[in-house]
């Protein structure tokens, strides 16, 4: 039973929004623009473009693949004003993650979104992006940049907790 495009977008909208935030490198303004552009493209090509992605995640696959093949020019410049837009209700760790994503080349962002964030296998990631495994591995090298600040925060939190435990133990003794 063929679903309408509205139906498919509704079903995947939250995931598409999350992907847009990540792929745009933070800032809701850019994410909104990216998502609207994607909707325009998929509308032109529907349903043909999605026939091979006939699953519950078909639009996400289409979105990420298109972004990988042809990232919008407005995401490639260094115009800092384009990163505006409040994402303040997402928590500082998520904001840090999105901010770090913005320091990574767009093609690597697409690979990291699929594999690191969405937990797809390397085989799936290669198939969706249309690249071989070696190229995917190379793109995923940017994982260090993506996770650096998060791991640093996490490590700092653990250090703080350990310090508080030691302090309370010392005062108890």
């Amino acid at each position: 039973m063929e679903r309408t495009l509205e139906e498919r977008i509704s079903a995947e909208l939250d995931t598409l929004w999350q992907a847009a935030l990540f792929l745009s490198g933070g800032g809701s303004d850019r994410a909104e623009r990216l998502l609207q552009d994607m909707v325009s493209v998929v509308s032109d090509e529907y349903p043909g473009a999605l026939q091979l992605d006939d699953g519950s995640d078909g639009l996400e696959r289409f979105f990420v693949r298109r972004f990988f093949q042809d990232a919008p020019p407005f995401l490639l410049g260094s115009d800092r004003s384009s990163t505006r837009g409040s994402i303040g209700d997402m928590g500082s760790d998520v904001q840090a993650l999105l901010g770090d994503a913005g320091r990574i080349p767009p093609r690597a962002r697409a690979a990291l979104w699929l594999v690191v964030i969405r937990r797809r296998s390397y085989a799936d990631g290669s198939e969706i992006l249309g690249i071989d495994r070696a190229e995917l591995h190379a793109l995923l090298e940017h994982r260090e940049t993506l996770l650096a600040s998060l791991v640093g925060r996490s490590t700092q939190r653990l250090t703080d907790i350990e310090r508080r435990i030691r302090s309370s133990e010392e005062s108890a003794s």
Partner: protein
Amino acid sequence: MNCRDVREGLWPPERPRLVGPQVERARAHIRSCRECTRWFAEDRATLDTRHSLQSVRAPLRVQAKVFEALARAREGGTRSRVDAMRAGASRLRKRVAAVGGLLAAGAISALIIGPRLPPDGGARAGVIGEMGSDAAFVEDYLRRAVGEDYLESSDAEEIARFLRRELGLHSNLLSLAGLVPTRVEICLLEGRRGAMVVYRLDGRRVTHYLVPKAAEERPPRIAREHGSLTVVTWSTDALEEALVGEMPSNELLDLARSGITE
């Protein structure tokens, strides 16, 4: 087995997998490799953040813009319309607050007034009943949720063009003796973009909701009587539909049945 093979072979680490010789070798590698141990530890350390990101919901403002973009893309049919879309989307913001009130009320999923099915359309659904969302029709009717994207017209052709342009609906309006269309509006119900066509019948107002949504065919039934308001819902394979009006329930039900079969 090198680090690359191990990381790929055990990815994602939380996924259950059969423990064969390959997996055992990979795990043994991790135990003896500080880099791979660190690599997987870093992944665990970001678990909460990844989950937080994947629980982010698309704000109502974004939902509205997306469906506005879709409508305009359908109208223009090419990417060159994107900029125009973006400009047009701004007017939608003004009404988002009102729609937000409706959606926050937690009512519905989607209804639509209903034109007939497209030639290839069948009939699915019953989703409204499943969701217990009949109240949303009433909410939307009472609040006039979306006050701007509308067309005031008694010209059925003009209203049909509006529906084609905004929602891609190639269907007929209800056509019964004495039933006169007066207005069509876009509505947003839990993120679904639909339309409501307002008719006059013997001086009374009847509103027909149409919400594109895959569903199973369900004939008209009286879904709710809310004070003087009656709601009749049904669905086709492509639309959830409802009639809302201040008239006796049997009369509204007959109207829905006539509108479908004629």
